[in-house]
């Protein structure tokens, strides 16, 4: 096993007052793999995303990404290092256009200087055309119909297209590591299946992309993940392939509860 660890977290804890949302978590992601992060509600999955993406500063522990210690850096710095995420409740800017939302994800490539934005409009417009082309290619790969709606507000589009735009926004900056926080939320089974296929196809857009996926739909986890980590009460309960996870009695107990042994 000479796989390269792209992300390596050791002893990660996150306390909110007396509540330990994460405690002493060791977790790694290999380059190019899809890691499923599962566990009951409140087990610390989203907290883990928030800690690694810089929204929270961990109470203890270290996060190493591509050999660099990124513990406690700002979300901006972490984005620039190559980690992007989606949000559980899609946090797109609904009143902005599809193009605007995708370009927010492309922020690291945008020239934000006053001179080039406000005075040298020719230079800006050249960059704009480049952005239109880039966004168009990405949208076309997910849903060709979206290209024609590139300048419509996102709020006018159905949920599955909003999810697609979120994926585009995350991928347009060519990240190395993508966190997907429950992409199936609010969608039907068929839509979820379709979207997951699309996401996996997008892997080719970003070379060697690794994905960490939070998902409650076990079918999705079974189909797309290489490896799973099960969290419960902020601790790692189990780690292994989907089949191992599904067969494990401890995991079953965490999800379904203990079998009642003594019945009166």
């Amino acid at each position, binding site marked *: 096993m000479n796989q390269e660890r792209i992300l390596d977290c050791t002893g990660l804890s996150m306390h909110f007052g007396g509540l330990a949302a994460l405690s002493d978590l060791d977790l790694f992601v290999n380059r190019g793999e899809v890691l499923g992060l599962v566990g009951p509600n409140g087990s610390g999955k989203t907290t883990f995303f928030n800690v690694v993406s810089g*929204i929270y500063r961990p109470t203890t522990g270290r996060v190493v990404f591509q050999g660099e210690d990124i513990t406690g850096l700002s979300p*901006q710095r972490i984005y620039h290092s190559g980690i992007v995420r989606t949000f559980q409740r899609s946090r797109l800017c609904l009143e902005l256009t599809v193009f605007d939302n995708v370009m927010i994800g492309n922020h690291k490539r945008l020239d934000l200087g006053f001179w080039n934005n406000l005075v040298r409009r020719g230079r800006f417009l050249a960059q704009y055309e480049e952005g239109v082309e880039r966004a168009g290619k990405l949208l076309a790969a997910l849903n*060709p119909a979206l*290209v024609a709606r590139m300048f419509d507000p996102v709020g006018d589009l159905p949920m599955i297209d909003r999810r697609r735009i979120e994926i585009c926004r995350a991928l347009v900056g060519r990240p190395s590591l993508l966190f997907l926080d429950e992409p199936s939320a609010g969608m039907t089974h068929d839509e979820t299946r379709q979207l997951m296929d699309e996401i996996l196809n997008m892997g080719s857009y970003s070379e060697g992309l690794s994905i960490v996926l939070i998902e409650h739909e076990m079918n999705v986890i079974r189909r797309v993940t290489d490896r799973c980590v099960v969290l419960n009460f902020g601790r790692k309960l189990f780690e292994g392939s989907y089949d191992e996870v599904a067969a494990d009695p401890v995991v079953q107990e965490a999800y379904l509860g203990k079998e009642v042994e003594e019945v009166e």
Partner: protein
Amino acid sequence: MPGSIQHNASVPGAVPNPGSAAKAGPLAGIVAAVAVTAYAAAFLLSESQGLILALLVGGAVAAGLAVRVGAHRAVARSLAAHGRLGDGLAVGMVLALMVIFHDDHYALFLVATILLYVVAVLGLNVQLGFTGLINFSCASFFGIGGYTAAMLGGHTGVPPLVILACGGVTAAVVGSILLLPVLRTSGHYSALVTMAFALLFKVFMEVNDAFGGPQGVDVAPMRLFGWDFSSDVEIGSYTGSFYLPYVLLALALAVGAFVLVRRIERSWIGLSLDAVRVDEVAGACFGIDIRRWKITAFTAGNFLAGVSGALYAMMLAYISPANFTFADSLIFLSILLLGGIGSSWGVVLATAVVVVVPEKFQVIQEYRFIIYSSLVLLMILFRPMGLLPRKVRAYRRQA
């Protein structure tokens, strides 16, 4: 070019031009501009309160009818199809009013006031409309510009055109005192910080005799290339009001501010400001530097307020703290709400309405705050996007 994506076989059809429409002629836009100019001129000319009331009602009915028959859409299409037509017509309207009222001090004073308020509210638009930073002390920054003009014009030999810039810079620098509390708070708390500043500013000006105290202070008039703006214009046998050059300079400022704000909107800077307003956390996760953009927007907005305040003070020739109260800040805010938050054209329209109507329709003068507040409430209830709602961003001007 957007069309180049067509090379990709999986893309059906071309990327549409943002806001594209079937090519419409310029006629509808021109007719609308002439009608609005005639209406504005009639309004400014009328003296009797009955006539003004009739004009107000008539204007409202005509606007309602135009919307009913879809004329507004024809006008919008016509203006959208000819990118610079709308800008040109707006400037042309001001020039036409200058010709019609060339010797009417009062009407010209109102036109110049509108133009200067437009500059200040455009600044507020960058702060609140784009970035979501609420600022209840816009009139204070307007006043800082005014007092800068008074101090520099009275005690130094700084050229008046430079004084305008100094007014803007002073407002921006004083505003930076507020940056720390504004950055550390958000939403309502940031509103409270600016409210406190507005009240503080007025008291500070009242108790400081160096700034004229409550009685106020004289302001030296604008001078440009040795030309004193306080004397009537005489070109041959033609005599014009001394307000004419002020209107012209105010128009130049307004056009400059408008172009600047629109370019901000149609750039990656505007996109970043919008992202800060809509969702700071999501923005931060995509590398957007929240503090940087808040500082940029707050400073730029205060600069515009300061520049316009400086010229306004020169035009008034005399200012006092009573010109720049918290209530005036509320008027600036209500203009933005009325016109449509984030909408630059909305700012222009709403400023004209809010400045002119109470001045001409004296009956409501005493009740104008009640009327403003009910108007704002009605707008929020029935037309929250304002008179001319902000459109989605199109980066490129259409043909």
